[in-house]
């Protein structure tokens, strides 16, 4: 043996040679290689834009946290402070402002419009950080000096009201001083649900609204000249604040809370982006599979000349990794550009102004993800290189290399682990990540199964009697080097996402509409004082509305369940109860019968208290009881406006909440609460919009303190909300759909190289251009049709599951929208397929054969 002996390895080819060979090999395939990775560009763009948004948002929240609450400390409560707490709060800080907020009817006399708004009566210079953004700009300060109000800008626009017009709140008219554009902590979304109206607090008493039955929120905004010790100070006072159930916000807590909320949003959006990336990866895997099949001969020659399996593998891997990195870099660039538009898209959800800046960590993260996934997904076909024998130089072996390789299962395992790891990183919860991974896996398996089933069915039930062109087009679905699986997967998943969004929107809107169908009530009036009951019923009757009676409401607080109170719950982490059951106010009623929306699920209904020392049996809503382990016979101690009242749980009720109806967590029997301070709710049905408007105007005129919600308003708010939310989701889903289209184009172009030879052969044998086009057109029609059909079916199954288990309603799919999506996807697939075939049919066969 000499030093050249194979058992005494020499250095052999250096690593640089591998790169040189990769460069040489890629020469004539670069455009095709790039086509392979173009599928991941949009996925990376989506991720980078969302990561960048997240980082920019975090920076802005850090910078603008004080402007989110407008002060150093905000203390919020929905009841009067105790004298001790009042003294403590008064002593805090150097400057203070007060605010009272509650829902009320706003009446615009000029146009005769009424609308439920969120009223804020303000005293002081709040906000200390940031400002009330108004039009005109000075209105944010000047409205405090006289009987004037700031009104949400979109509300003014909707009712065509203007600065200088009059707005009536309760018994008092206000001059509209300005249009409110932004207030601390407000987003476009909150303004759509409850438009804001600010007015000076000194006029609150004159409106008569401070005596409302509904909850009036009180806030104290505190400003310190020296802010260094605030966190320490608040920490020290925390036990006292907690004891009085006060909600205290500081700049730091607001920062954390906002970051948490938007962390959730960006995490959710990045998962949608990740789905687009995964979809693109399927395209990469499929393309690399075909590439390796084409390169078997080349790789066999290299092996023959002495290249090891590892060298042959690395030469291919370097090419894939390089174009993967290039694709990721382009995706990152595109994502950075798109990121400029993200704050605009999300403006209704963002509480701060976001300045878009280039985020290098996000770009790095996106590029690394892109590089990793392109390598990972290419690995499945790449590992088969190990099986390419140099003997291929002497004999052509047509068997599928990938199918032989057991190592591909390890690669699949790595891919699953990567998806799980990535989603766990985004969701910060392993159980959710497992669900996400399983969900993605199920969708992929379902679509792949559809593709495989289709190929088998076509082969088994092949229509031999059909004309040649049809048979050829159909046979292309299962012949070697077909793209059936990858096209059905990519197009199907994109269609499924878009259709699911359409269906869910429909489900939610229909759910609200159905709640008042038939003769169900569709209007609720609340904050009715006992003295206003009869006149209000008379007014309703005079408008021809059904008015049988009102429902009394008493505000109570739950102090203890058996011997567990708020303090015990806070100290014992083993207790599985929700903390808010002791902190919230309960609006309860008393009656001797059940309503049609209730049903006793456990125990027995007791509608009347016997009096004396007899126990008071209350009925509790079943879900509330289940969540907090409240059982029949448990003792509930209530605080009824200062008076402790001990009751026993007599029954648990199932309640249908999705009706315009007064429903309650807790119902008392008749004979207990009659003398407690109470207000009333009146539920009725108005037949149409004009009569609804007329009645609301009359109510606001005669009973200015009463608030009205009608189903039209609820529907329009839900519609607005869904529109805003679905616009964001649609935007993200577009990444998936566009990736699907890119994968489709790439797959079609890859299959062009496969189909080119036979199309040329057909033309050489005398086939017309039209026949070749028809064969290709039919193949893509079958593919597009089936992919769209599978996508629509998956979205229907998903939407039905959501409708049945989450929204608890009947699913009626929007078949017209589904048909439109189906037609559009079919047309797109056929269009792309035919555009690609024109390349073959428009040029002389010899020209293509020579190129090949």
């Amino acid at each position, binding site marked *: *043996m000499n030093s*050249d*002996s*194979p*058992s005494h*390895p*020499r*250095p*052999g*080819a*250096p690593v640089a*040679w591998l790169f*040189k*060979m990769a460069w*040489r*090999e*890629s*020469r*004539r*395939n670069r455009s095709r290689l790039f086509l392979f990775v173009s599928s991941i560009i949009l996925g990376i763009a989506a991720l980078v834009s969302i990561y960048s948004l997240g980082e920019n948002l975090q920076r802005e929240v850090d910078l603008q946290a004080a402007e989110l609450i407008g002060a150093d400390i905000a203390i919020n409560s929905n009841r009067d402070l105790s004298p001790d707490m009042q003294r403590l709060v008064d002593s805090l800080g150097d400057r203070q402002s007060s605010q009272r907020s509650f829902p009320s009817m706003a009446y615009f006399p000029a146009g005769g419009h009424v609308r439920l708004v969120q009223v804020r009566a303000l005293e002081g210079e709040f906000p200390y950080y940031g400002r009330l953004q108004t039009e005109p700009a000075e209105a944010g300060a000047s409205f405090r000096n006289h009987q004037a109000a700031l009104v949400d800008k979109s509300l003014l626009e909707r009712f065509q009201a203007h600065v200088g017009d009059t707005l009536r709140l309760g018994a008092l008219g206000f001059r509209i001083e300005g249009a409110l554009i932004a207030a601390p902590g407000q987003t476009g979304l909150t303004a759509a649900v409850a438009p804001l109206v600010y007015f000076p607090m000194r006029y609150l008493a004159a409106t008569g609204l401070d005596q409302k039955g509904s909850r009036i929120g009180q806030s104290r905004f505190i400003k310190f000249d020296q802010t260094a010790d605030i966190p320490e100070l608040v920490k020290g006072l925390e036990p006292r604040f907690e004891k009085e159930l006060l909600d205290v916000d500081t700049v730091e807590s607001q920062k954390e809370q906002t970051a948490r909320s938007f962390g959730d949003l960006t995490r959710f959006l990045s998962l949608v982006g990740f789905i687009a990336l995964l979809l693109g990866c399927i395209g990469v895997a499929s393309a690399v599979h075909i590439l390796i099949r084409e390169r078997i*001969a*080349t790789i*066999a*020659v*290299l*092996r*023959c*000349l*002495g*290249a*090891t*399996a*590892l*060298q042959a593998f690395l030469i291919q891997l370097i090419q894939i990794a390089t174009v993967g990195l290039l694709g990721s870099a382009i995706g990152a660039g595109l994502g950075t550009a798109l990121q400029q538009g993200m704050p605009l898209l999300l403006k209704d959800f963002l509480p701060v102004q976001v300045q878009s800046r280039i985020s290098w960590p996000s770009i790095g993260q996106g590029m690394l993800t892109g590089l990793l996934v392109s390598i990972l997904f290419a690995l499945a076909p790449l590992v088969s290189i190990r099986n390419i*024998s*140099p*003997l291929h*130089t*002497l*004999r052509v072996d047509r068997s599928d290399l990938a199918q032989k390789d057991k190592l591909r299962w390890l690669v699949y395992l790595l891919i699953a682990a990567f998806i799980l790891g990535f989603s766990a990183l985004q969701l910060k919860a392993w159980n959710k990540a497992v669900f996400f991974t399983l969900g993605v896996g199920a969708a992929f398996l379902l679509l792949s199964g559809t593709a495989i089933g289709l190929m088998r069915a076509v082969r088994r039930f092949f229509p031999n009697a059909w004309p040649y062109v049809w048979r050829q087009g159909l046979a292309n679905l299962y012949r070697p080097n077909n793209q059936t699986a990858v096209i059905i997967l990519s197009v199907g998943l994109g269609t499924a996402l878009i259709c699911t969004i359409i269906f869910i929107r429909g489900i939610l809107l229909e759910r609200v509409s159905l709640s008042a169908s038939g003769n169900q009530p569709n209007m609720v009036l609340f904050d009715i004082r006992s003295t206003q009951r009869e006149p209000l019923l008379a007014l309703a009757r005079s408008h021809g509305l059904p008015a049988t009676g009102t429902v009394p409401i008493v505000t109570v607080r739950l102090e203890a369940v058996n011997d567990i109170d708020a303090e015990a719950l806070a100290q014992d982490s083993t207790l599985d109860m929700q903390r808010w059951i002791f902190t919230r106010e309960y609006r309860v009623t008393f009656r001797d019968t059940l309503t049609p929306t209730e049903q006793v699920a456990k125990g027995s209904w007791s509608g009347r208290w016997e009096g004396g020392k007899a126990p008071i049996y209350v009925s509790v809503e079943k879900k509330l009881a289940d969540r907090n382990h409240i059982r029949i016979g448990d003792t509930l101690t209530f605080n009824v406006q200062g008076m402790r009242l001990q009751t026993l749980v007599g029954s648990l009720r199932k309640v249908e909440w999705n009706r315009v109806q007064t429903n309650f967590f807790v119902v008392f029997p008749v004979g207990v609460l009659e003398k407690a301070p109470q207000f009333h709710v009146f539920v009725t049905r108005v037949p149409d919009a004009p009569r609804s408007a007329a009645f609301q105007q009359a109510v606001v005129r005669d009973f200015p303190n009463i608030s009205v919600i009608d189903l039209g308003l609820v529907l329009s708010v839900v519609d607005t909300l869904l529109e805003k939310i679905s616009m964001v989701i649609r935007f993200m889903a577009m990444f998936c759909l566009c990736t699907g289209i890119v994968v489709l184009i790439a797959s079609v172009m890859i299959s062009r190289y496969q189909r080119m030879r036979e199309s040329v052969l057909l033309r050489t044998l005398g086939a017309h251009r039209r026949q070749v086009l028809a064969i290709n057109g039919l193949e893509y029609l079958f593919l597009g049709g089936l992919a769209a059909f599978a996508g629509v079916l998956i979205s229907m199954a998903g939407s039905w599951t959501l409708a049945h288990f989450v929204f608890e309603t009947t699913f009626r799919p929007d078949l017209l929208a589904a048909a439109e999506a189906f037609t559009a996807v079919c047309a797109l697939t056929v269009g792309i397929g035919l555009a690609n075939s024109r390349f073959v049919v428009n040029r002389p066969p010899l020209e293509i054969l020579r190129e090949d």
Partner: protein
Amino acid sequence: MPPILSLDHVSKTYQSAGHRLTVLDAVSLTVEEGSTLAVVGPSGSGKTTLLGLCAGLDNATEGRIELNGVRLDTLDEDARARVRNLYIGFIFQNFQLLPTLTALENVMVPMELRGERQVWNRALELLDKVGLSERVHHYPSQLSGGEQQRVSLARAFSNKPRILFADEPTGNLDTETSARIEALLFSLNQEAGTTLIVVTHNVELAARTGRIIRLKGGRILSDERTTPDCQQPIPPRT
């Protein structure tokens, strides 16, 4: 001359659809260093399989193969790849040039795989020898069949092989080009003193070698010396 290649009871069988198919059946032979040899026989007689086994492109089912003192049947695929790179040159019927590499780069690859430096000059020199000094930067698709086979010849000799395997080297070429390639093959081979094993249907080509082995049904039917000093047929060692 010492043997460069020896086969001892080498068999190759394939398992296909439950059937056992014996392609080579206990073949034994020895090839002396520097000699030339042709393997002839009808299609399916096992010629290509024999070449594949001798060149370490495949594993024998049974028997022992030794090339330049190295037992091929004991090596794994990567070690056999090194053997090929160190000792073997190949010429194929369909040229088997790497389509994305120029003529020059195709010739350089075996040397680069050995980790050699400054291979450019030797590759140019070889291409000059085969008459392609004007076409060094052309891709295979830009060359005629004869030119491609000449590049293949230059590549085969680039790593100074001890043994050269040629599988139907003129099978895809017209008569005139075939004659030129044959002449080039034998002249380069003589100059380098390389052992040459040719698998062919071409009787004229086979006749130019010093020894002809006839295969049929996976067995050696005859083994005859064709050179004047060695006219007597050698009985097969089966």
